[in-house]
């Protein structure tokens, strides 16, 4: 069994924990004993934070709405469609007709990329996330 050191995905405490990995599957969680926040303990959410990762409800492939119904699509087609629709909107109504919501669940790197995408690629400052909720 391999133990991978990482951070709990739930609240802002940022507890350190290990994910137990067996044959490419996460089987359990154990807290980091010396972490300055959690000192070897976890709350009920932390102890169970691996479970949703492998839930069968996970989205498995891009979905595109055709004739009002969401249908399975390839990455290539889905991204092409988004690129052309966003570029079209930008040309027709200007960049400020596009809004981007980033996420407090994503990593710092991803938020940085989202911000760069909104400001440099789209050309709008309409970017926000759920800090207020």
């Amino acid at each position, binding site marked *: 069994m391999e133990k991978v050191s*990482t951070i709990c995905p739930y*609240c802002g405490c940022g507890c350190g924990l290990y994910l137990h990995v067996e044959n490419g599957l*996460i089987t359990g969680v154990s807290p980091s004993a010396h972490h300055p*926040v959690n000192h070897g303990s976890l709350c009920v959410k932390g102890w169970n934070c691996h479970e949703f990762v492998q839930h069968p409800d996970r989205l*498995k492939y891009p979905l595109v709405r055709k004739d009002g119904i969401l249908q399975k699509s390839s990455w290539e087609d889905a991204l092409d469609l988004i690129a052309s629709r966003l570029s079209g909107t930008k040309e027709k109504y200007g960049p400020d007709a596009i809004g*981007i*919501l980033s996420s407090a669940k994503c990593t710092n790197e991803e938020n940085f*990329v989202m911000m760069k995408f909104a400001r440099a690629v789209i050309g709008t400052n309409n970017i926000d996330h*759920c800090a207020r909720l």
Partner: protein
Amino acid sequence: MAGLASAFGSGAMTNSISEIADARVIFVVGSNTTEQHPMIAMHMLEAVDRGATLIVADPRKTQIAAFAHTHLRQRSGTDVALLNGIMNVIIGEGLVDINFVRRRTENFDEFEKVVKRCTPEVAEKITGVPASDIQRVARIYATEKRSMLFYSMGITQHVTGVDNVRSCANLVMLTAHIGQPMTGLNPLRGQNNVQGACDMGALPDVYSGYQKVADARARKKFESAWRRKLPSARGMTMIDMFDSAREGRLKAMYIVGENPVMSDPDTSHVVEAIRKLDFLVVQDIFMSETAELADVILPAVTFAEKDGTFTNTERRVQKVRKAVRPMYGAMPDWKIIAELSKKMGYDMGYRAAHEIMEEAALLTPVYGGILHHRLDDFGLQWPCPDADHPGTPFMHRKKFAKGLGTFNPIEFTPPDETTDMTYPFILTTGRLYFRYHTATMCRRTATLEREEPECFVEINPKDAGRIGVRSGNSVKAVSRRGEIVVKALVTDRTPEGIVFIPFHFREAAVNLITSPAVDPVAKIPEFKVCAINLVPVIPKPGERPKNRYNRKEDLKILNELYEEPEVPS
């Protein structure tokens, strides 16, 4: 955060979690710490064991309030009056740290004029907290050297959210409980990386590290790094975006890992706004209520399938490591965005997450020394300006980020919606220990789902008697905007006249009825005060409640779980 920025010049927890256990006074305002930040509460209770005094101000008798030496039960939305009352006592009894006020702050005289009017007796009338309690708390908080002040959404989710935060900042500066270990003003952030998302500039008016988009020098720096002309006018906040979409001006939205249909106030308006969009992309790990309305849905990965960093509430940037390969056909969010921007004619050229952090460090002074290879132990706390800097456990040591700290004179203003004959109860919303936000994640975790499978409304026994409900009865909660049906839970945790509903449940989405009023500066919705009425629902004879949670079914699903991941092209 706008409130903190106007007082100190920077919005984040000023001190560290590891200092809590050594504090002498812990003052918690509007935070249900044991349920929402259990590990921080653990440090608080350790401090109490070592002899610290715990003071909690919250209308509800939360778990942390049950541990408190003094529990101030102010009326919902009267925090400013309570804090002004406390500060009035501090000034009146000469407990102000005059040296600190003179050397490091400004605008004290204006502020003093306002606070002078709010005596403990006046505060008692507004808040319902006895004047003697206000005096006692003021003396304890001001005379002890190591006093830490904590607040959370109970302070910010009001139309006066920014005023509330500024009042907290005033209190901290008045007694000089800042810039030293075991002191400070400490907002507890609700989500794992909400601090990081703010730091990285996912906000309409700032780049990463809170560099203003309106500031020409900052803009020029980013323009030359990114080789693109950047807009200078501030953008729209989330609430503005939905308003603008409803008016037909915003045409397309790209939503990553969020579920505004559940989390935003006055849901029906949000849905109406989203329906009006020409094009909506949602990128998430599960099908959410928002994703159901999307034109394109992209599968992203969870924290366990990618590398990166999270910044916790004490500004500690910590490494998240990839434990397993992306399940099914999902891709990390940064990769999706990078692919998309390549298709739109802008190649970002990132090969791995640490390269993004290197770029962020170059462009962001407070993250200047935060690089992946330095985060291997327990991360680093920003501000960390260069590669040799050891990080900063507590801020504002010699001076505030903006130079002098500013006292903001704050008058008490009542909440946006008041109770009347038709809507006699104040509704306040919040979270539960076993649940998390809109519950897309924890609803898919068997243990958590088992504990709190159903939505409820907490009612005081006196109110319950008056409207004629018992625990377990169905009640209809009606506001000016809509209605939901929930189970009643009769308890003295909530005081008379106030009811509490958690916002996690899609069957009884409380945000159908919450008020859309927002703070004029920070645009935080007023989730904590909204006028409603409760009507008992009489069940039809012979009707049985259906049992929604089924452990057998859940285990079966878990066993059949694993699918060989498809490798994305």
